[in-house]
């Protein structure tokens, strides 16, 4: 109880942040949103920061975040991306790109070239100011922050973010890239990126979220992403997390899937010192196909935690989940994959696989599948493997002339590649291949 109270006391700073901005909220935002924010901040106060005594946080201790005094980020006008941030844009692509600095939209760094009819991509703050009615059914209505203190905090404190709306039947020709960068040169800041994607029935689109920061800087990104996928829509989502190795990153992702939709989300976690992703997919009608892929590469003292939750709420849906962790040095990984199959969700086909490669004796993983199945005519499988590099494979590579470090890197790359290969956007896949090859050099000219 003492720890709990201590953590609760630490909420004061954040409540004060809310009070600072509430005047502006009251002046510029619709009443319904102001109401949501009030509820969210008080819910956050009630919940407090989670402790490892709570089941959902047993393996992730957020004390380093709680202890630190982050300054609420304001809009930072910068003319160009810091050149210490590599591999975050897709320079040779025709992607629509929105850039956010510390959570605030930066028109100067964005290019909204040739947006198609029927597709809106804009700053969330602007959408709230101009067209709040369109957002009202979705913004924070989808996801409940009731049980998620960090989601509640984001809901109370976000100032801006991305709003993407794809009209019924519209097929987006190019991916939409939402790039959230943090720059925190003077003081450790906290930012609250917020993304709302509403994909109409029979629409198709690819949404890429990137999170990046300046290497060496300490900051806290607390993000919430809500994606509502309409009937029969086909949506592909990527989350590329390349925060600074000193950064804290907590993300709540909420996916609401409608009848016969096809949704895939790929989550790649490379950066951050303390990272937690909550991925929630609600399969709310029949005939949905949902794919969740994940790759974690943790080294040094990184701690990367993925909690996924797939709710099979209706019959005849399929979910495929493959998460892979590569954990090196003293790093720790956590994977908890919950699949709920409700009583009426007959003919559910759910497959979950979690594979971990431990590259050092000190590296560790906690992998927990959790299947709750209340229907009787279903096909649900899960498998978790944890292992080290195959000594025989390593020897085989070495007998062909490949040095030990390169052989290890090649095998590790191959392990990761199963996830990278599933990425269907060439520019994204190539970028990740490049990043991986830099982290795992095995070619002679490297």
């Amino acid at each position, binding site marked *: 109880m003492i720890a709990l109270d201590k953590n609760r006391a630490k909420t004061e700073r954040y409540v004060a942040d809310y009070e600072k901005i509430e005047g502006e909220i009251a002046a510029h935002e619709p009443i319904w949103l102001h109401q949501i924010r009030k509820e969210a901040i008080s819910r956050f106060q009630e919940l407090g920061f989670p402790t490892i005594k709570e089941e959902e946080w047993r393996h992730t201790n957020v004390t380093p975040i709680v202890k630190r005094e982050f300054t609420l980020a304001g809009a930072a006008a910068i003319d160009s991306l810091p050149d210490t941030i590599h591999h975050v844009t897709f320079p040779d692509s025709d992607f629509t790109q929105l850039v956010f600095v510390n959570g605030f939209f930066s028109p100067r760094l964005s290019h909204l070239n040739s947006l198609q009819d029927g597709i809106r991509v804009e700053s969330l703050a602007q959408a709230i100011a101009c067209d709040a009615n369109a957002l009202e059914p979705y913004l924070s209505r989808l996801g409940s922050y009731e049980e998620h203190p960090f989601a509640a905090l984001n809901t109370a404190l976000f100032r801006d973010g991305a709003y993407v709306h794809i009209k019924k039947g519209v097929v987006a020709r190019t991916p939409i890239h939402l790039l959230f960068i943090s720059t925190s040169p003077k003081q450790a800041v906290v930012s609250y990126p917020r993304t709302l994607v509403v994909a109409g029935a029979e629409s198709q689109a690819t949404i890429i979220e990137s999170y990046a920061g300046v290497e060496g800087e300490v900051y806290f990104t607390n993000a919430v992403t809500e994606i509502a996928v309409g009937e029969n829509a086909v949506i592909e989502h990527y989350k590329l997390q390349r925060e600074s190795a000193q950064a804290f990153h907590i993300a709540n992702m909420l996916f609401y899937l409608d009848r016969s939709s096809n949704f895939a989300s790929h989550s790649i976690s490379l950066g951050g010192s303390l990272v937690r992703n909550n991925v929630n997919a609600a399969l709310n009608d029949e005939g949905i196909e949902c794919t969740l892929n994940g790759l974690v590469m943790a080294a040094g003292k990184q701690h990367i935690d993925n909690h996924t939750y797939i709710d099979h709420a209706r019959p005849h849906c399929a979910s495929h989940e493959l998460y892979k962790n590569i954990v090196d040095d003293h790093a720790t990984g956590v994977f908890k994959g919950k699949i709920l199959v409700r009583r009426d969700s007959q003919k559910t086909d759910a497959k979950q696989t979690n594979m971990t490669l431990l590259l050092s004796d000190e590296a560790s993983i906690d992998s927990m599948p959790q299947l709750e199945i209340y229907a009787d005519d279903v096909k649900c499988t899960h498998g978790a493997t944890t292992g080290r590099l195959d000594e025989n494979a390593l020897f*085989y590579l070495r007998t062909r*002339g490949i040095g030990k470090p390169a052989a290890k890197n*090649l095998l590790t790359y191959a392990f990761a590649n199963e996830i990278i290969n599933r990425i269907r956007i060439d520019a994204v896949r190539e970028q990740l291949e490049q990043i991986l090859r830099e982290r795992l050099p095995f070619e002679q000219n490297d």
Partner: protein
Amino acid sequence: MLEIRNLHVNVDGKEILRGIDLTIRAGETHAIMGPNGSGKSTLAQVLAGHEAYEITEGVILYEGQNLAELEPEERACAGMFLAFQYPVEIPGVSNTYFLKTALNAIRKARGEEPLDAVDFLALVKEKMKLVHLDEKLLHRPVNEGFSGGEKKRNEIFHMAVLDPKLAILDETDSGLDVDALRIVAEGVNALRDETRAVMVITHYQRLLNYLVPDFVHILAKGRIVKSGGRELALEVEENGYVGLEEPTEVLQPVGY
């Protein structure tokens, strides 16, 4: 080229090789024959540098260097090649990608420039023909889902691309039909010249019809119990390994 003197090797504290003496000179092909469990693969793995095999006595010299001082990759870069009895599957690494990485590592060690994609492809195409390797196996992960015969042929393909000075083939012929056997033998024969040497480990004399050795050695219980010329293999074919369990007369093969 290779000189093995009084080699004793332990695995898990158990002595498997119990005093092997063998000299292989440039230009020669030596066949090692012997019953199952006699230590043939152990010898091959020791030569390649597998850590599980501990040399307790004796020495192996390769081109005058003490092999024990070289890492497996250094041996490969110095021109040694082992075709595995059981080639290892490498999920996620394409056969060509792997081979290019290996070849360029060896070229670098030799002080040569890495081959670019175009030259590499030309080399691969040429060598592929030599062993009649199906093109689709180039792009698949190394040995994954390959049939037994495809794996063996792939080993010879690797050998042809990496162009070693000393090739050691561990039962590359086992499980092959006659056509595949002939292809494997042709691949090895193409490599043979007066600057290189081959050690071919086999259980059956059949391969030796196509890949004619200069010397044949019979290995039993971790020792070479008999050495001779090509005719020794035929003798084994006739009589099996009966009576060859313990060293009898160690014939000095012709040319020694």
